């Protein structure tokens, strides 16, 4: 069996040859992670789906510009974060504050849009759904630059080094944004956690 690095190189070669099957394999491998980032960053399922699609289309179109100086996933997440930032700015310009879908996706987790929650007592399930809604609202209210780091670090569990590479920011800036984001979240959730 080929090691992961070799598999990735082989996939990249096929992607550069515009092999449709390779594109599908790439999507299958990364779609949920990319979608989770876009969903947590944007807080809206339809927007998240649209942006996630654009991410993969951008990756396909610009695969030749990927020089393999970083991990492919790092490059992919950079494209994802950039698309999210652009969409956040676009939505802010349109004063789109409609987050109604958030309620649907957080409370209707069993409809296949979000991974099915583990069996829980009704009270606990409700409390969990409420907490998730609270958290998502709290994330959505963070400044965009704070939202990026907190989603990558605390939701996606990426290392500070990876976040520095993805955001192209120095270590100190990432940490300070993370402190501020956590401070803001802590204040918003203080009465609930």
């Amino acid at each position, binding site marked *: 069996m080929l090691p992961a690095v070799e598999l990735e190189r082989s996939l990249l070669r096929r992607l550069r*040859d*515009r*092999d*449709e099957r390779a*594109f*599908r394999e790439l*999507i*299958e491998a990364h*779609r*949920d992670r*990319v*979608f*989770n980032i876009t*969903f*947590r960053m944007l807080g809206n*399922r339809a927007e*998240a*789906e649209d942006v*996630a*699609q654009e991410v*993969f*289309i951008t990756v*396909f179109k610009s695969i030749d510009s990927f020089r393999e100086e970083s991990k492919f996933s790092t490059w992919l997440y950079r494209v994802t974060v950039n698309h999210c930032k652009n969409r956040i700015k676009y939505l802010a310009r349109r004063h789109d504050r409609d987050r109604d879908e958030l309620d649907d*996706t957080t409370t209707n*987790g069993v409809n*296949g*849009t*979000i*991974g099915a*929650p583990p069996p829980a007592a009704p009270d606990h399930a409700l409390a969990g759904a409420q*907490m*998730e809604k609270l*958290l*998502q609202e709290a994330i959505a209210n963070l400044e965009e630059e704070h939202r990026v780091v*907190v989603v990558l*670090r*605390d*939701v996606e*569990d990426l290392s*500070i080094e990876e976040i520095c590479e993805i955001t192209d920011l120095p270590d100190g800036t990432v*940490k*300070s944004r*993370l*402190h*501020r984001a*956590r*401070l803001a*979240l*802590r204040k918003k*959730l*203080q009465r609930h*956690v």
Partner: protein
Amino acid sequence: MSDDTTEEDEIVAKLSDYLDGALKGAERDDVAAKIEGDDVWKRAHAELVETRKALSGLRKAHAPPSFAQDVTSTIHTRSAGRFFGRRTFGDRVPFGALVAIAVLGLVVIAYFMWASQTGSLEGHRERAPRSSGSAESVVPKP
């Protein structure tokens, strides 16, 4: 900004680094001791731990099952079906390289045309006088 807020910021910054494993040696021990012995630090630490736990415990959102199909369909539509499939020679070789090869080819052709005895670029060279067919030889001497 009030002193309380500044102090709170500093506590959260330290705790944040502490939880990320970014503190070493004496600094880490100092924060650990404060969490142990100072109620403000203890409470802030507990709240941060809970906040991080809640964030990492958020359910993972999954893309719809038709996602891959949707993306490839979009690419097909936008590129009018030209995107996928093996690329043409022009796509594989950079344009600059193609231009360089073309210029080199033209230079070689031009050289051969110039060097050839009958080449069309030979015009500027001095031609040898013809031995026959000149006006002098045709006109009879008186």
